[in-house]
């Protein structure tokens, strides 16, 4: 319970013709010391606003934010002991790399030898030794990003905030920096809040993911919890791909349920609070279905087949609906062309039942 948000609400007053906007609508979460939590969601879901509220760049409309048990709502950004890596890096164009990183230390009037030591250490950490005297406009995007990170880390912050720091980088660099950031974060043990709309980033980096939509939290959980047991269709659709199959709950027991769909009954995992007799959907991930030469669960016709290299993706029409099937077995690499009638088998016990 290191960083706690209690029922945080942020409303923006109507300005310039637009009406009032509730960007964050009752967000509560609790982050442990040393963990990296990602706020994940589509544009406009409130994740960046939440981050800015934590950092102090916006003022709460209502609710509380506590750091180590102490309320920090009334503190301006420069008194919160946090650091932030901005999406645009926000490197000071008129200072060189060393001066950029040392900026916060100079504000605190840290003696110069100490400054040199700490900046040197953090430059090593981000692999930019030797770049001290470069001007920002002489740096590549990835290098600028590492300067921004170094600048945040050298402050030894209580909380590190990152606002989509990788979105301006190309794909390969993004992958590289992703693991760098995670490695450094774990090595230093800094509590971090990371904002992104990229689910792969979220899955790779996070101890916990907070999925947000339209100002509220849809689900908080580990990457596996979110993927395997999404709590809503939104979450299921946002992380990975999902097939939604209409089904009816027959009986519920603990975290499992017996459901009926396509005329058959299956035992699947289920969200708590499902009552028997309710209609819902089964979340079935594409990689849990494959085309079977023998018996199967569904029968359908192939509409589309795409060879991806590491898998084959099919769209199969089953009973009026379309199921996405991802065949990843390197052995079973037979490409069924569109129009073929096929039988689909699936790991139905891995399906997850949600209310509609």
């Amino acid at each position, binding site marked *: 319970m290191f960083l706690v948000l209690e029922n945080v609400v942020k409303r923006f*007053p109507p300005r310039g013709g637009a009406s009032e906007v509730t960007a964050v609508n009752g967000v509560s979460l609790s982050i442990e010391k040393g963990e990296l939590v990602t706020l994940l969601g589509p544009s406009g879901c409130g994740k960046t606003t939440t981050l800015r509220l934590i*950092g*102090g*760049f916006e*003022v709460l409309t209502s609710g509380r934010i506590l750091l180590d048990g102490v309320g920090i709502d*009334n503190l*301006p*950004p*420069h*008194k*919160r002991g*946090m*650091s*932030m890596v*901005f*999406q*645009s890096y*926000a*490197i*000071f*164009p*008129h200072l060189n790399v060393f001066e950029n990183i040392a*900026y*916060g230390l100079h*504000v*605190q009037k840290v003696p110069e030898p100490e400054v040199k030591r700490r900046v040197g250490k953090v430059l090593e950490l981000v692999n930019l030794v030797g770049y001290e005297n470069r001007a920002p406009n002489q740096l590549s995007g990835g290098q600028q990003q590492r300067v*921004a990170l170094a*600048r945040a880390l050298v*402050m030894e912050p209580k909380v590190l*905030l990152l606002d989509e720091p990788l979105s301006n980088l190309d794909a390969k660099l993004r992958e590289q920096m992703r693991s760098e950031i995670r490695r450094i974060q774990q090595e230093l043990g800094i509590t971090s809040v990371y904002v992104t709309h990229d689910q792969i980033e979220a899955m790779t980096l996070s101890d916990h993911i907070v999925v947000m939509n339209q100002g509220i939290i849809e689900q908080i959980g580990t990457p596996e919890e979110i993927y395997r047991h999404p709590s809503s269709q939104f979450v299921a659709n946002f992380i990975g791909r999902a097939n939604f199959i209409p089904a009816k709950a027959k009986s519920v027991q603990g975290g499992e349920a017996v459901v009926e769909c396509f005329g058959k009954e299956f035992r699947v995992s289920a969200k708590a609070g499902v009552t028997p007799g309710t209609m819902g959907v089964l979340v079935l991930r594409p990689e849990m279905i494959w085309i079977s030469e023998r018996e199967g669960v569904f029968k359908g016709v192939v509409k589309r087949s795409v060879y991806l290299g590491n898998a084959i993706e099919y769209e199969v029409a089953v009973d009026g609906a379309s199921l996405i099937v991802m065949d990843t077995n390197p052995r079973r690499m037979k490409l069924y062309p569109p129009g073929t009638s096929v039988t689909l088998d699936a790991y139905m016990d891995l399906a997850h039942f949600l209310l509609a």
Partner: protein
Amino acid sequence: MLAVKRRLQEFSLIGRDPVLALSLIISALFLFAFIVFPIAQTVWSGFFNKEGQFSLTYFARYFDSYYGPVSRQIFLDTLTMGVLTAAGGTLLGFIFAYTIVRCRVPGKNFLHILALVPTVSPPFAIALSTILLFGRNGLVTKGILNMSFPPGSNDVYGMDGLVSVQIITFFSVAYLILRAMLERLDPSMEEAARSMGAGKAHIFRTVTLPLLIPGIAGSFLLLFVEALADLGNPLFIAGNVTVLSAQIFLAIAGEYDYQKASALAFVLLIPTLVVFLVQRYYVSRRSYISVTGKPTGGLIEEKEGWIRWPFIIVTYLVSGLIVILYLAIIYGSFSKAWGIDYSFSLEWWKQMFARGIESILDTTFLSILATPIAVLLGMIVAFLVVRKQFSGKQALDFTSNLGGAVPGTILGIGFVLAFSTPPWFLVIFMYVVLFLFTLGILKATFWEKVATGIVGTLLGAGFFVVGARIGQVLLTYLISILSLGFGVYLLFTRPKKKNGVKLVLFGVYGALHTLIEYVAQPLMRAANAIPEGTWKNAATQFPDYIQVFFKLPHAILGCVLIILIVTIALQERTSFRRVLIPLFLGGSFALIFGGKPMALVGTPYIILAAFAVRSLPASVRSGVASLQQIDPSIEEASAIMGADAQYTFRKVTLPLIMPAILAGLIFSFTRHMTSLSAIIFLVSAKWRIVTASILSEWEQGGISMAAAYSTIIIVFVLIAIGILYLVSGKMLKRRGGIDITWGA
């Protein structure tokens, strides 16, 4: 209720950063005191006669049978002049812009500079040189063409001459706006039209022109306002035509009738304010071309010869005319008797230095002194407007622009009306605002604040009574000694010396308020000992200049004290604060209300305020433009690394807006040196301004003297521009130079 709560919350946000709150208070007070209040005074006075009774006399004159026709004619002529100048100026500006951006014309930079020359010269320079060349005794009209002008014939005086002169004087504004727009017009739009089969004329009509309409409309409206506000040119060259600005001037200079002047000023204010609002809030919002966009429009080239050549020819002709006009001024100042004897003579320059050196020195000194004030204030307002959200932000922005948008005569009249005698309303308002601000910003319980307030007021009354007894001079010494005492105490007892130093410095400054005379008087005696002539006249100014730095009006000194105390109190322990604040609130009360608070007419301070008010919009605009180009996350990055607003401003924002500041310095200085209408009523025997001197020389027929004065203003401005370009070139070598068009 919720709205009020939200507003208070907003202000408490700013209160989190006291330095920011202080900047807001200082700029808001300045704007209120020197823009809103004087303009309100002007408007108000048009409705009351000398006895103080409500009177619509001068408004009724528009409708009666005796005064009516003349009054209406003046109004009509004013509007006609405005429309013609706006139309002509916009057209000329467009031709220049089109030529420079799209026609491959040799000497682009030369033409660009020439187009801007009218902005750095006194407002009536063109009128002066037009008369020199084309007047009744003009070099061209009489000397070369040997024309004569019997009464009734069409000479250069009158509406035609006035509009022509105004077009040349003001077209630069249109040129800059339209050039910027043409440069940012995305070539792909015209290419897309071409690829759909549209011909050149069709593209121009349906694509280019509509995209430029906001620029054209904006220029038209701006030029209209400039023409209406113009005082110098109509006085020189309008002949039998009278326009409102001249009528207002004559109402005071000739008739001493402030009610009439104010009423007429109100009539002038309406169209200028309406047009200003339309231009700012309607036209400029509808721009389809981004001001901060990339200048790729220069890639479009005008290839049709039949368009290119006329444009180039007109542009060069007008440029040539501008060169000749300015050469005429310079030559006019050096010719023995213009119109009769054109031989070279230094006579006029000698006379100017002998008689006018005080005027020249006063103007230059005050212009220089007002420049950092205007630029600093402009940057503060720009920062508040761009980076902060608070109720009344629009009002702050609008008011800062108002100072330059209203015709200067209206401000000038307002200053005289407001500051000839102590403006008690304003003084009380200022004190109350600062008083409430002081109590509000401190963290204390409600009752503590009330108690502090009451004690402060009582002490204030006490000091005031004491001050009435012992006189302002001794009172100032008393408060200075108190300040010194506390300052020394703080220096010895606190680890951080800053606050002690502040109080000590204030104490010393307060003491110098009177003590400086012991420096000034011997200097003055020494200066008086110099034999009669230019050097004596020059030397006797300097003791006065030294005193300007120290003889701040007591009311302003009091306000400074309150602000100083607030900055100190915020860092001090509660027990000490309980003594500090009431004591010095009381002291400032006595300083502010004693004597003749804010009766600034006749002092150099009112001229400084007038200068600053007039050049403020340019600084604000260039500050806003450059701040908008800085990513806000840069300042947020600084904040989250522990820097408060002040540190961020000093170490991050300031270096990045330095180009805009330098541009602002150039513009402000230029504007100060060439001001006429705002300061014409503020000059006194002790503080003289060159532009006003030119006017009086001209009235006495000393056209060559007028030319000499004009030349020297132009020279000083060019020197200043040169120095600033040199300095900025060295400072900003890494980041490219500065653009003089910022702030236009």
